[in-house]
C-alpha cells in the first residue's frame, strides 16, 4: 500500500473528516518512486483505471479500501514516464468514463481530455511553456483552391518574430497543424526555440485535413497536392530558401504515414522529415489485424519496405514505448539507415498522445533545423 494511504489507515478505517483532510492535502495520483497509486472517492460497484499502455491491461481494477468510500489502484511506472488515463466507474450497473476528480492535470486532444499522471522523474520541459522574454511570431490564415483535392483548403502559416521579406527562410509543413497548435503548443515551442537560437527562424505551414484517415493513409493525391500545389503556393507567397535540405515535412500518427509517403513518392522535395509515432502498420505475410482503416496504410508500408529508396536525407523519428506502434517504428530504423538516411530515433516513456509529441519537438526540430546557438556568443 502507498505510504500515505498506509498512514491514513494506520488505526483502521479513517473517519470521513480525516479522509476529507487527506484528499485536500495530497497530490493525486500518489507517486512513490516507481509505484503510482490512483485514488477514487465515491460510491461505486467497481472502478477501473483506463489507460492505453501497450503491455498493460487496458482496464486495471481498483480495490475498495476497507469501510470507506475510497478506492485505490497501484501500477508500476518506470522513471520519467508520463501517461494519460481516465477512470471507469460502475454505478447502478452503468459504466461511466470520467476524468480523475482528484487530479487537475489534464491533456487535451481532438476527442476531449484525459487526466495526466506525471511519473517520478518526469518534468514538463520549460521550453513548452510561454516565455515572456521570447518574441512571438505571427500566425496568418491563407486559403487556396486545390485542383488535386478538388477542394478549398485553409492553412495557418507561422511567421517567426522579426520576419523580413528580404530574407529567406526554411519551410516546415505540418500535418494536423492546427492540432499541433492547440494540443502540442507548437507556436510556443517555435517561439521559444527560435528565441533560444536552437532552431533558425523558419516558416511553418500548418495544414489540417477534413478526412485525415483517408488522406493521410498513403493517398497519392495528398502527396501530389503537397508537392504540386502547396510547395509552389508557399514559394510564391513567402521568401523561402531554394534548398530541399531546408524543406521539412512533419506529422504524427497517420500524419507520420502521410509525411513518409509524400517524401517517398516525391523524393528530392523534402530534405528533412519529422515523424512522430507513425502508424506504420505492415504485414510480412497474411492480413494485418488493425482494422480496415489501416488497409491503405499497410499497402503503402508493404510497398515502402520493399522499395524504400531515400525519401529524405535527414530524419527524426520518435515513438512512445507505451504504444503498440513502437515495434513498427523500431523496425523502420535499420531500413532507413541502410538507405543512407541521417536519422535520429528517440523513444519516450509515453504513449500515443499530443504531449508526447510536444515533448519531443525540441530534439526533432533542432536536429533537422539546427539553430545558430553554435555561432552566438553573447
Amino acid at each position, binding site marked *: 500500500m502507498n505510504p500515505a494511504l498506509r498512514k491514513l489507515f494506520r488505526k483502521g478505517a479513517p473517519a470521513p473528516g480525516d479522509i476529507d483532510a487527506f484528499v485536500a492535502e495530497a497530490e493525486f495520483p500518489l507517486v512513490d518512486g516507481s509505484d503510482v497509486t490512483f485514488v477514487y472517492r465515491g460510491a461505486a460497484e467497481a472502478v477501473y483505471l483506463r489507460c492505453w499502455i501497450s503491455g498493460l491491461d487496458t482496464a486495471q481494477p481498483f480495490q475498495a479500501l476497507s469501510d470507506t468510500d475510497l478506492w485505490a489502484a497501484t501500477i508500476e511506472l518506470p522513471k520519467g514516464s508520463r501517461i494519460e488515463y481516465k477512470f471507469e466507474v460502475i454505478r447502478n450497473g452503468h459504466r461511466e468514463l470520467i476524468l480523475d476528480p482528484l487530479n487537475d492535470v489534464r491533456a487535451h486532444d481532438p476527442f476531449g481530455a484525459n487526466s495526466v499522471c506525471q511519473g517520478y522523474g518526469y518534468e514538463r520541459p520549460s521550453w513548452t511553456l510561454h516565455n515572456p522574454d521570447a518574441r512571438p511570431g505571427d500566425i496568418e490564415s491563407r486559403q487556396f483552391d486545390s485542383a488535386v483535392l478538388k477542394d478549398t483548403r485553409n492553412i495557418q502559416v507561422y511567421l517567426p518574430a*522579426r520576419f*523580413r521579406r*528580404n530574407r529567406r527562410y526554411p519551410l516546415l509543413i505540418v500535418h494536423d497543424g492546427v492540432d499541433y497548435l492547440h494540443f502540442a503548443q507548437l507556436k510556443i515551442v517555435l517561439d521559444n526555440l527560435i528565441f533560444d537560437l*536552437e532552431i533558425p527562424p523558419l516558416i511553418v505551414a500548418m495544414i489540417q485535413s477534413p478526412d485525415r484517415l483517408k488522406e493521410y493513409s498513403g493517398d497519392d493525391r495528398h502527396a501530389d497536392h503537397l508537392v504540386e500545389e502547396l510547395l509552389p503556393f508557399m514559394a510564391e507567397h513567402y521568401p523561402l530558401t531554394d534548398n530541399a535540405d531546408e524543406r521539412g515535412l512533419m506529422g504524427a500518427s497517420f500524419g507520420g504515414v502521410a509525411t513518409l509517403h509524400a517524401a517517398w513518392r516525391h523524393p528530392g522535395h523534402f530534405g528533412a522529415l519529422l515523424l512522430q509515432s507513425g502508424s506504420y502498420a505492415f504485414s510480412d505475410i497474411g492480413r494485418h489485424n488493425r482494422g480496415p482503416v489501416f488497409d491503405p496504410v499497410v499497402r503503402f508500408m508493404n510497398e515502402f519496405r520493399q522499395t524504400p529508396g531515400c525519401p529524405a536525407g535527414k530524419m527524426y523519428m520518435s515513438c512512445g514505448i507505451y504504444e503498440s506502434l513502437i515495434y513498427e517504428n523500431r523496425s523502420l530504423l535499420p531500413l532507413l539507415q541502410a538507405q543512407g538516411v541521417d536519422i*535520429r530515433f528517440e523513444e519516450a516513456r509515453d504513449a500515443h498522445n499530443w504531449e508526447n509529441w510536444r515533448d519531443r519537438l*525540441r*530534439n526533432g526540430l*533542432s*536536429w533537422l533545423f*539546427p539553430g*545558430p*546557438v*553554435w*555561432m*552566438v*556568443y*553573447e
Partner: protein
Amino acid sequence: MTPDAPIRLLLGPQRPTVNLRSALDESGMPGGRMAVISAGWQEAEGDIDDVREIVGRELNDVGLYARAEALMAAHPKLHAAYRARQDRLVELQRLYRLRLRHLMVAARQTLRADGDPELLAPEQRHAIAQLRALDRHHLHRVHAIHDRFNCEYSRVQFEPLAEQAAEIEASITAADAVLITGGNVVVLLNRILLFGLGRLLRTKHVAAWSAGAMALADRVVLFHDRTPLGRRDPELLGAGLGIVPDSIFLPDAMRRIREKDAIRTSMYSRRFSPHTCIALDSGSLLRFENGALVAAEAARRLTVRGGFAPLRAA
C-alpha cells in the same frame, strides 16, 4: 585619432557580471566617444542604450549590419555574389564537419587508449596531426572562397561598397576607441570583412566582449558542448582579424564546455597550438598593449593535460 600604442581590451560575456565600465575606466583608453560595432546582434544592431548607460560615454553605432542589408537590397548582383559565397562557405563547412567528425572520434579514442607508451604516443601525436592538417586545409579553402569574392566585390572593386566603407571609416577614425559587442560571430566577422575594416581597427583602441573578442583573434573556433543534441566538435570557422595574435578566445566556456572531460579539453590546446586557447567567462578581462598581455583577470588557459590554468600577465 590614432594612438601610438593601441590598447586591446577583451572581456567575457557581460552577463551576469558586467565589467565593461570598470575595465574601460582602468584601461588607460581615452574617455571620449566610442564607435560601436554591434553587427553580431543582427536586426537588433544599434540597440545600445543599455551599453551606453553602462559605459557612461558617448557611443556611435556604425551600423555595419544595416548598411550591408541596404547595400544588398540596392545591388542585386552584390547580393547574389554574397549569397553564392555564403552558400559555398556553408557547404564547405559541412564537408569539413563530415571529415572532422571521424578524425575527432579517432583522436579521442586514441588519446583514451591504454597500452605501451612507446607504441601509443606516436599514434596519439599523429591523430592530432591529422586534425591539424584538416584545420589547415579548411583554413586555406575558406580563404580561397573569400579571395574569389573580394576580387570582384571588395571595397576597391565595387564603388557603392567603397562609399559605405568610407563613411564607416570616418566614424571610426573620429572616435577615441572602438567597442565591439558579442552576438553572432559569423555575421559580425562577415560584416567587418565586407567593409574591409580590419586594417583600420588595428590602429585603434579596441574593447570587445565575447564574439567581438573572438573576431579579433587569428583564428575563430566555434564550440558548444551543450546544444540540444549534445556536444559538437569544435570547428574552425576561419581566420579572424588577427589583431590579437597567438590566441583563440572561447567565451562563456564554463557554460559551453564540459570541463570535466579532460581528453576533450586537452584536444583544444593540442589541436590549435601554437595558439593559446583562452576561456573568457563572465567577469574575465584581458588587456594587451603593444601586443603584450599586461593585465589578466579571471581568464583561463586550456592546458595540454586538459585542465584550465589561470592566465597571468607577463
